[in-house]
C-alpha cells in the first residue's frame, strides 16, 4: 500500500523534476544556471535529510554502517554542490574544476563501499555468471575512460581532464555492485524501491558521460542536458532510501507482532 502510494509520488516527482529542468532550459542559459544551482541545494539537503532519517531508524548495526556510508556520500554531495553553486551563482567563478570536486570525489568514492555493503545481504543469490557480467560491464565503463585519462596525462596534463575521466572511472567501479543489484532485481530477488538505488547509478553514469563530453567540447553549463541526468539520481536515491525505511519499519512491526 505504502509502496504503491510512493510509486505515484515517485512518478510525480520525476515529472516535476523534468519540468524544472526543461522550462529553464528552454528559457535560456542564465535562467537555467540560476535554477540549477538553487535546485541542487534543495535536492542535496533533502537527500541528506532522508539519509539521516534512514541512519537514525536503521536498527541493525551492519545496515546502519551501510547507510552511514550513504550519508557520507550525500553530505559530500551537499558540500560539493554548495561550493559549486556558490562559486557559480554568487561569485561568477567557473566552478569546475574547483574545491567542490574534492567533495564530489569523496561522495563518489563513498558509493563504492556503500553499494558493496548494500548488496551483501543478497550474496547467496549472486552467482559466478552475475559476477562475470558485472566485471564486464564495469570494465566496459572503466577501460575507455582510463585510456582517455592516460592519454590526457601523457599530453597536456590538466586537473580538469583528469577529473573529467575520474568520475566515469569511479562510476565504473560503482557499477560492479550496481550491475549485480540490477540483475538480482530482474531475477525478482529484490523489490522495486531498493532497486531504485541501482537505477539511480545508471542515470548518474549517463550524466557523467554527457558532462565529460560537454565539458571537453566547452558546451557544458549548469542546467544543460547532463544536469537532467544528475537530478534523477537524487530523486531515485531519496525514494529508495525513504521507502526502505518504511519497509524496515513495517518489518519491525511485523516482527514485534509475531
Amino acid at each position, binding site marked *: 500500500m505504502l509502496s504503491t502510494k510512493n510509486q505515484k509520488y515517485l512518478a510525480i516527482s520525476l515529472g516535476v523534476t523534468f519540468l524544472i529542468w526543461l522550462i529553464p532550459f528552454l528559457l535560456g542559459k542564465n535562467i537555467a544556471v540560476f535554477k540549477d544551482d538553487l535546485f541542487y*541545494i534543495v535536492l542535496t*539537503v533533502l537527500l541528506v*535529510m532522508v539519509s539521516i532519517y534512514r541512519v537514525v531508524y536503521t536498527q541493525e548495526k551492519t545496515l546502519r554502517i551501510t547507510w552511514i556510508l550513504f550519508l557520507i556520500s550525500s553530505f559530500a554531495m551537499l*558540500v560539493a554542490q*554548495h*561550493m559549486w553553486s*556558490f562559486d557559480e551563482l*554568487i*561569485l561568477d567563478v567557473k566552478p569546475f574544476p574547483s574545491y567542490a570536486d574534492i567533495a564530489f570525489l569523496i561522495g563518489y568514492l563513498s558509493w563504492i563501499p556503500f553499494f558493496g555493503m548494500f548488496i551483501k545481504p543478497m550474496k547467496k543469490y549472486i552467482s559466478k555468471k552475475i559476477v562475470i557480467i558485472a566485471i564486464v560491464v564495469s570494465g566496459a565503463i572503466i577501460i575507455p575512460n582510463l585510456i582517455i585519462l592516460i592519454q590526457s596525462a601523457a599530453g597536456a596534463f590538466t586537473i580538469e581532464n583528469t577529473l573529467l575521466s575520474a568520475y566515469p572511472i569511479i562510476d565504473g567501479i560503482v557499477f560492479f555492485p550496481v550491475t549485480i543489484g540490477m540483475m538480482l532485481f530482474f531475477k525478482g530477488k529484490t523489490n522495486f524501491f531498493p532497486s531504485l538505488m541501482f537505477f539511480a547509478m545508471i542515470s548518474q553514469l549517463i550524466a557523467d558521460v554527457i558532462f565529460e563530453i560537454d565539458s571537453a567540447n*566547452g558546451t557544458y553549463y549548469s542546467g544543460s542536458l547532463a544536469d537532467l541526468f544528475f537530478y534523477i539520481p537524487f530523486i531515485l536515491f531519496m525514494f529508495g532510501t525513504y521507502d526502505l525505511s518504511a519497509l524496515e519499519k513495517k518489518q519491525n512491526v511485523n516482527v514485534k507482532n509475531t
Partner: protein
Amino acid sequence: MKLFFSILLIAFGIIITSEVIGVIFIYEVKVNMENTILDSAEEKNQLLVNRIDSYISDRTIDMLNLVNDKSVLQAVVSSNADFQKMDNPRQYVETQNATWNSTPRNTSPSLMLNITQNPTADRLREMMNIEKAIFHSDVFSRMLLANSYGAVVAASEAPADYDQFTESWYVEVKQDGLHVGNVTMDKPSGIVGIPIAVRINDENGNFVGVAKGIISINNVFHMLSNQMATQKIMPVKYELFDSKGTVLYSSDPTEKPLATSFPVDFVQNITGHSGSFVYTHPEEGQHFVVYVTSNSSKITPTGNWILATEYDPVQMLKPVRDMTTLLIIIMFVLIPITCIVVFVISRRIERPLSYIISTLHGFSKRDVKYIVPNGSDEIKELAANFNQMMKSVTESERKIIESEGLYRDLFESSPDPVRLIDLNGIVIDVNQAFVKKFGYSKEEAIGQPLSSSLVETSQYDIQQILQELKRGIKIDSMQVLYRKKDGSTFPALLSATPFCDSKNKLVGYVGIIKDVSELIEAKTKIEEKEATIESQYAKLAQVDKLKDEFSSMISHELTTPLFPIKFHAAMLKDPKNFGTLNKDQLNSVNEIYQNSEKLERLISDVLEVQKLEMGVTMFKKESFEVDEFMNKIFANNLPYMGNKQIKFVNSTKAKTRITSDSDRLGQVFSNLIINSVDFVPDKVAMIEINAKDEGNYILFYVKDNGSGIPKDKQENLFKKFYQIDTSPTRRHRGSGLGLSICKGIVDGLGGTIWLESAVGVGTVVYFKIPKVAVTR
C-alpha cells in the same frame, strides 16, 4: 518516526529557506560590492591618471631648478662666450654635426665637443641620480644642455645630433620657454619617454640655451604603480593609452593585451570615456575592468591619457567569498546540529508517545493497562487524559454492552417478527419471533434477500418500500403478503424505519411484521355484519317512511270524520237546535265534544310533527319588536294560569328587533308554558318568560318551579311521543309531541333549544333564535 521526519523536514525547510535568503543576501552584497568597488576604482584611477600630467609638470619644475643651478648656467654662458669668439659659430656647429656620429666622442677636438665627460655632464647625471633616488626609478632617461647656437654643451649620454638649433622643440623652447613632447622613443637610447625642455636665461633674462630631458614612460608607470600601492589599488594588469588609443605601456606585456581580451571594441569604447564593466568569460570567469581618461591635459600635445585597469574579482570580492565560506560553514555545522537536536527532541516526544501508543494498541485489544505518566508535562497530561479516556471508554463500553443486551432482549423478545435489512435488501438479523413465525432458523434467514420471504405480488411493493426508506421515509402498517418456509402465506402489516450509524449515515432498515391474519378474518366478519345491519337499516327506513306516510294518512283520515262529530256535539249542546238535554245527556255530549277536541289537537300535533320532520313546514319572515312580542305572549297565555293561581312573570327587557316567524315562536312559547302549567305545584307556582339580546341571537326561555326532570330523562325529552312517566297511573296526560314540535320549529328557524332542570327545583327551557331569519 514520522514525527522525527516531520520535524526534520520543517527544520531543513527552515535551513533551506534561510540558506536561499542568505544566498540572495550575499548576492545582493556582491552586486553592491561590485558596483562600489568599480566606482571606487574608477574614482581612484581618475586621480591616478590625472596625476600623470602633474607629475610631468613637477619634473619640468625639476628641470627649471636644474637650469637655475649656477654651474649649469655658467657652463652654458661660458660655452656661448667661446662660440662668440668664432667667426661663424653656426657653421662650426653644422660642420661638427655633420661628422658627429662618425667622430669618436673621447677624441673630440674641442672642449665643447666633449659633452658627456665634463663637469656639467656630471652635474646632469648627478641630478638624474638624485631624481632616481627620490623616485626609486630612472626619472629622466637622458638629459642635455644646448647653448644659444644649438650646440650641445653637456649631456648625460651622447645625443643623436650635436646641433639642436633646428629641432622644433628647440625653436619652441627658445620662443615659449617650455616644451613637452609626445611620448616617443628616444632613438639613441631606445627608451620610450616624454621629452621636456626648458629655456635657460642669464641673470638679465637673456636667452642663453636650453635644457632637455626625457622622462621615461617606465617612470610614469613606476609612479602609477607606487601610487596604486600607496592607495592599495591592486590590479591584475593595467595599460596606459594615449588619446588615440595607442598602448603606451602595459604592466604585463607577456599577457594578452586588454584590447584583445574582450569581445567588444575595447579601444573605441574606452577612448575619451571613463567607466567600468564586468565581463564574464565562459572559461576564465569574471573580469573587472575600469578605464579612465585624464581631464583635458594641456601639458602634452598628445592630449588625454587613458588608463585601463583590470582587477582580480576573486581578490576584489574576497569579503563576499568569505561570506559564502562562512555561510557554507554555518550550513555544515547547522545541519548536523539540527539533526541531533531534532533527533533528541523527537526521541523525547516519541518515546513516551510510543509507550502511550503501545498501551492504546493493547487497549484496542481489550488489554486495559493504564499509562504511567512519564516525560514532559504535556506528555504527562496527555497520559493522564488517555487514562481518563480509557476509563470513560471502558465504562461507556460496559454501558453499551448492557444497553446492547437490553435492546437485544427487546429485539429478541418482541412478539412480532423483526428483521434488520441492509441497504441492498439483504437480511442481517432476525429475532426469535421471526424464526418462530417464518420457520427459518436464524442462520438460514440471515443473508437471504428480502424478497425470498415475500409472495410474488408483494415483491414490487417491497421494492417501492425500499426506495422510500432510502429517501428516509418511514413505512407505517403497509399490508404485505409473506410466505413462510413451508410455503404457506399470511397477510401482515409491515412497519419499517431506516437506521443509521453513529455518523448518521443510513446503513439499513428495521422491519416489524405484524401478522394480521386474525384481524383480517375478524374484519371480514364485521363487514358481513355491517352489510346485514345496513340492509336492515334500509328496511327500517322504508318502514319508517311507510309509518310516516301512514301517520299522515291516518291523521288526515281521522280528522275528516272528527269534524262532523265535533260539529254535531256542538249542535246537541246548543238547546236551540235539538232542544234542552238532560244533565246526563249534556255531560255525555260535553265528553264527546272535549274528546273530539283532544283528538283534534292530537291529530294536529301529529300532523305538525310530521310536516316538520318532512321539512314541508313553511316559516314566515317578518320583523317585529321582541318586547312587544313577549308582551303578547304574556297576554295570550295568562288565561292558563287561573286554575292554579300561578305567578306568571314576563321579565323581558330587551328592546330589539328580530326577523323571524312570530306565530311559530308563539306556538313554541304556548307549548312550553302549557307544559309548565301542567307541572308547577298547585300552590306557590311561578312561571317566568324572558327574552335576552345576545348579539346575533335572541335567547328566549320559559322557567318554572315545577317538579323538575331527572338527568337520565332529559336527553330524550325532545323525541316524539316521549313521556317521562309512562305508567298507567301517571298524573300528567299529553301526547308527548309538544317539545318535539318546539324543537322542530326552533330548528326550522335556525335556532337551538335545550333545557336545564333539577328535580324539586324546576325547569328552564331555553331556545335561541337568530335575529336574522335563517332558512334551513
